[in-house]
């Protein structure tokens, strides 16, 4: 290359040899791969828990004791409750369990002849609310007015456990990403120190010629950033097919459909926030590389006058 065309990022310190383009990108690629899996796992668990939580929160079980007894309007109590459920704006659907359904439910406790017992069994309704956050108290009041003594069972304890489970999974994923970031920081720091040791003489020479800490640290940080970015892009390229494969495996749990998906539909399976988080990984890796290299070199240079 003619001397007049000297590149602006000329390698005055010989960092291309001191900071190898093999080991550091490989380690960063591995870290990125692990971080991508952690993020995908957290996203999937959170989505799954959200679906379960949403479904359970919207489900109610309504029991009407003495269902055949007359209600205030003269009709049976069960009929009065079914009318009240149909009239409620909060209810999406309500299904009365048949005698066969109730017999199946009670079979583990009462055997096959439950319906033949002299005890009057309550009428049972499976109710799905339009919105999990619907005003269930208003429904309680309406049902009690229709048939006093009607019981409404919610899934509160289950919801609480699912919420805790989702939060725990997210916390574990965040911890995994934090550990990966810490390990990446340590690896970059060690690589930078190795580069400093390998170029000690060159650094002392340019320092003696008037190079500032900013210039020397900038040279190291620039090289490390390029290597970290390259490594993270490689790691991401490897991680995305794996994440899509896991999405294919978990599809039946997510959509209750086991039908095989096309690659194009798999891409849309991953939620937008997860795509955004995956896209941020190379940016984060570059930032970790740049910041760690800057700090390590400046700390090292502080020993020089």
């Amino acid at each position: 290359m003619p001397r007049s065309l000297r590149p602006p990022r000329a390698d005055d310190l010989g960092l291309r040899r001191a900071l190898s383009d093999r080991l550091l990108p490989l380690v960063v690629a591995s870290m990125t791969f692990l971080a991508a899996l952690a993020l995908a796992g957290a996203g999937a668990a959170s989505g799954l828990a959200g679906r379960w939580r949403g479904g359970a929160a919207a489900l109610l079980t309504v029991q009407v004791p003495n269902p055949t007894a007359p209600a205030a309007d003269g009709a049976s109590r069960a009929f009065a409750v079914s009318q009240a459920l149909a009239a409620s704006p909060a209810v999406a659907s309500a299904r009365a369990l048949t005698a066969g359904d109730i017999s199946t439910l009670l079979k583990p406790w009462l055997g096959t002849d439950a319906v033949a017992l002299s005890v009057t069994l309550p009428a049972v309704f499976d109710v799905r609310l339009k919105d999990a956050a619907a005003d269930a108290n208003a429904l309680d009041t309406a049902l009690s007015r229709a048939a006093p003594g009607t019981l409404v069972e919610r899934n509160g304890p289950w919801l609480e456990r699912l919420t805790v489970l989702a939060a725990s999974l997210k916390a574990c994923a965040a911890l995994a990403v934090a550990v990966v970031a810490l390990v990446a920081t340590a690896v970059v720091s060690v690589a930078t120190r190795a580069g400093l040791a390998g170029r000690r003489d060159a650094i002392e020479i340019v320092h003696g010629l008037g190079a500032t800490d900013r210039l020397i640290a900038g040279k190291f940080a620039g090289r490390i950033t390029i290597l970290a970015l390259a490594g993270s892009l490689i790691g991401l390229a490897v991680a995305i097919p794996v994440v899509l494969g896991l999405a294919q495996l978990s599809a039946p749990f997510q959509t209750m459909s086991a039908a095989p998906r096309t690659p194009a539909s798999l891409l849309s399976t991953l939620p937008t926030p997860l795509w955004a988080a995956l896209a941020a990984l190379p940016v984060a890796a570059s930032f970790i590389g740049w910041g760690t290299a800057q700090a390590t070199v400046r700390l090292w240079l502080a020993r020089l006058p």
Partner: protein
Amino acid sequence: MVRLDGVGLRYGRADAPAVLRDLNFAIPAGGFRWLLGPSGAGKTSLLRLLTLAVRPTAGRLELLGAAIETAGRRDLPPLRRRIGMIFQDFRLLPHLSAFDNVALPLRLAGRPEGQVRADVEEMLRFVSLTRRGDARPAELSGGEQQRVAIARAVIGRPQLLLADEPTGNLDDTQAERLMQLLMELNRIGTTVMVATHSTGLVARYPGRELVLEEGRLVCDGAAPEAS
């Protein structure tokens, strides 16, 4: 320009032996000094002090108008760019060509690349290395490396030029040219200090002498008459 007032220097711990003790002398702007003394007398340590490679551990050092013992780290790089140093062991960057080694001080000072190229080519021509500009130090002889080091030290027109045995690897002709260059730079206002063991060189270019022995200044003046 250069003023030392009770300057001392130790390497490492506070109880380590002093390599320089109670130095007191001054060199005005445009002055010339020979730095003489036996091996181990402290000449190289004094040059390291004056190139700001170390700071004094005692006394006051004033350099190019700045009090070094109190100056912040950020104040030193601009001062270093005003100081040229010719090292005994050349201290060239092995992965850079001769051209890029010579260009380094100008690039660190942020000079435009076009000006860098013109100045470096002129300097390489002066030290007779025009055709060796693309060679790396390992491909150059000891004398050629010395000339690259000289070119790098003077290309930035430093206000203070220090040299440690600068003619040690040069033939008589090149040594003569170097001394004439140093004298010319001194004549136009550069302060020059040259450390040497060569009595012949000192005899050919008489000048004021600083003589060190065991880290102490034992003479600041003309060479003592031989008895």
